[in-house]
């Protein structure tokens, strides 16, 4: 296992910069997830670390040692792809032992390693089976066991769950999170699915257009997004974004009748800000309220439905549909005709650049 560092990494395909000046250090044993929409450069970055793609600029360091010139097989990486490639004519056991046999590892050492992965992965009862007879989740587990049995410097995973049927995918996600922490292997994982990233990662690297948008642990990315893209990409149901216009003593929402004032918890700096702002607020910070209750705004509720112990509702501001979620115990009993915004959830963004605006930068 190793620490992996990228220094000013760039990959150009002709005039197109797939990866643009990326810096990142992945600690020994850390689980880092590259997240972003398709074409953002996450897979190209992974392939560079694997040695399957040439960096056109910058360095790739394994434990401080530059590996740019080494081939994939010389880097001691293990890679698992979307589509599992197990040898169909070998049993599970022989599939897993294959990388060790290929290196001429001693028999006793192989037995010891096999015991270890069988224990961690809980696959003792399928060792004699052939891959074709296994469900997809089990096949993916075997592929992972084969990948880690030879102590790779880093485990690279390229959308490993996306080809698995949705009902097995969630199971496999739980397993993968558990196994990575049991193994303690440095892991770099690529996905476009924010749920997977949030669930699995120690840190998430959010990418867009070949560049890093934000690097943070899942909580940091969720609570403190650097821009509208990050706020929108993370979280379901999605963050609500509402255009703001400054008026005397407050901020008007989406050119409508509703004005937020300091009584709603809007900070003075946001009202006095000279640049046009956009409010970002997650649905869990939007509450149902009686129209004349404290802090309530008379915004008609369009749709309201209860599920279990939560109520979901939608409302419209300036044509856009927004969403709120409320625990049922907290909601007013009668028909709600208004909305209250919890100022703890207020995030302000520059309406033009989309960058997050904080008080120190607002002046």
């Amino acid at each position, binding site marked *: 296992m190793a620490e992996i560092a990228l220094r000013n990494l760039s990959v150009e395909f002709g005039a197109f910069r797939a990866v643009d000046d990326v810096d990142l250090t992945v600690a020994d044993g850390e689980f880092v997830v590259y997240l972003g929409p398709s074409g953002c450069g996450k897979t190209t970055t992974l392939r560079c670390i694997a040695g399957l793609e040439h960096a056109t600029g910058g360095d790739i360091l394994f434990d401080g040692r530059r590996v740019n010139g080494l081939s994939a097989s010389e880097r001691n990486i293990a890679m698992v792809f979307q589509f599992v490639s197990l040898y169909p004519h070998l049993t599970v056991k022989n599939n897993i032992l294959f990388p060790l046999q290929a290196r001429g590892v001693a028999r006793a050492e192989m037995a010891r390693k096999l015991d270890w992965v069988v224990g961690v992965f809980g696959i003792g009862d399928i060792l004699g089976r052939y891959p074709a007879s296994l469900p997809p989740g089990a096949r993916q587990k075997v592929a992972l066991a084969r990948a880690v049995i030879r102590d790779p410097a880093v485990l690279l995973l390229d959308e490993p769950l996306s080809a698995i049927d949705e009902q097995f995918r969630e199971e496999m996600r739980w397993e993968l999170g558990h196994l990575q922490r049991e193994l303690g292997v440095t892991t770099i994982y690529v996905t476009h699915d924010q749920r997977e990233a949030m669930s699995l990662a120690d840190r998430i690297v959010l990418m867009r257009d070949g560049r890093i948008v934000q690097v943070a642990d899942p909580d940091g990315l969720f609570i403190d997004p650097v821009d509208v893209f990050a706020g929108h990409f993370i979280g379901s149901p999605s963050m609500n974004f509402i255009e703001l216009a400054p008026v005397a003593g407050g901020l008007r929402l989406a050119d409508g009748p509703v004005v937020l004032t300091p009584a709603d918890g809007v900070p003075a700096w946001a009202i006095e800000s000279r640049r046009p702002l956009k409010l970002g607020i997650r649905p869990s910070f939007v509450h149902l309220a009686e129209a004349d209750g404290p802090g309530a705004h008379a915004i008609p509720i369009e749709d309201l439905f209860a599920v279990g112990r939560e109520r*979901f509702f939608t409302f419209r501001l300036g044509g856009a549909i927004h969403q709120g979620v409320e625990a049922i115990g907290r909601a007013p009993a009668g028909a709600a005709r208004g909305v209250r915004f919890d100022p703890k959830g207020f995030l302000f963004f520059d309406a033009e650049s989309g960058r997050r605006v904080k008080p120190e930068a607002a002046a």
Partner: protein
Amino acid sequence: MTAPIKLSLQGLEKSYRGAPALRGLDLEVADGEIFVLLGPTGAGKSSTLLATAGLVDIDAGRVLKDGVDVTDLPPGERDIAIVFEGFNLLPVLNVYDNIAFSLRSPRYREAETEIRARVGRTAELLRISHLLDRDVETLSGGEKQRVAIARALVRRPSLLLLDEPLSALDLKLREGLRAELRDIHRKHRTTMLYATHDYHGAIAIADRIGIIDAGVMHQAADIQTILERPASMLVGRLVGSPAMAFFEAAVEGEEVRIGHGGGRLLLAGFRPFDPPAGTEVTLGVWPEDILLGPAGSLAGGDGVIYAVDNRGFERAVQVEFGGQFFRKVVPSDVRFRQGDAVSFAVAPGAGYLFDAASGARVSHLARGGRP
């Protein structure tokens, strides 16, 4: 149900090359409701929709629409529209002509002025007015799916069938289109039968949900009723987020003992409870009703945190105890880590008892012993 019945499926049976897909499926959809068929892959959802539309021949059973038997009518005469996962658009036509296609068919043959008005209104509803001149091949997945829905809606079908209409789209597009579908439904009261394997997608759109598996309907009700009175263990497994937790259990006198030292509950909380003598029971509990704390803090069972699933605004944890698992959402300020020792207890008055063999609920019975 006070609304008239729009669709009634009675005892549908269908096999493909000897493999049964539908095994006596019953279903009633009320006029103006969104009914969601929720079940895993291979449960029979698509077969149900295809049989309703008349696109496959059923082996047995009847399809009634507005009280009229349409079992033997060809698809074109049923006034039912269907939207698939794969868009089914005509690649040689632009967006406008795709939407207008069915209105120009011999069956409708509407005047072009009427077509223009209706395509315009439908496009506005689905926010694709700006795309009408585009070739469908140049559209994104979300745009294509909107066009496919517009094409189905434009002829104002009395029943709209949607087969996993959003599953090819990414999460954000799904959320948006789901809101649009509910919006359309509010404005037009189009009756919709919607098939999905996604619990979150189902509860976000459904008036009522039908839990389907192995070609049989297991429970059809609004989600609140399903959560309060789950008909079987299978329903518990397919509903909830996370799904229901199950514990080995035994009834001992006036108490229910939970296996692996999980504690005891009063049987009084499960009445009316009257299973046949000798029935082995399993305790099912919604995860919200399981209390979880540090080791030694609760007088129930002991377990270990097996894995943690961060969801941003909350966390779910998987707890291992005595070789079994359950999963539960905990508030985001509760920081359990993998490997932490924990204790748990089932909240008094919570949980259901199921027949361990058949899976049917045997506690909280209604009068006459029915679940």
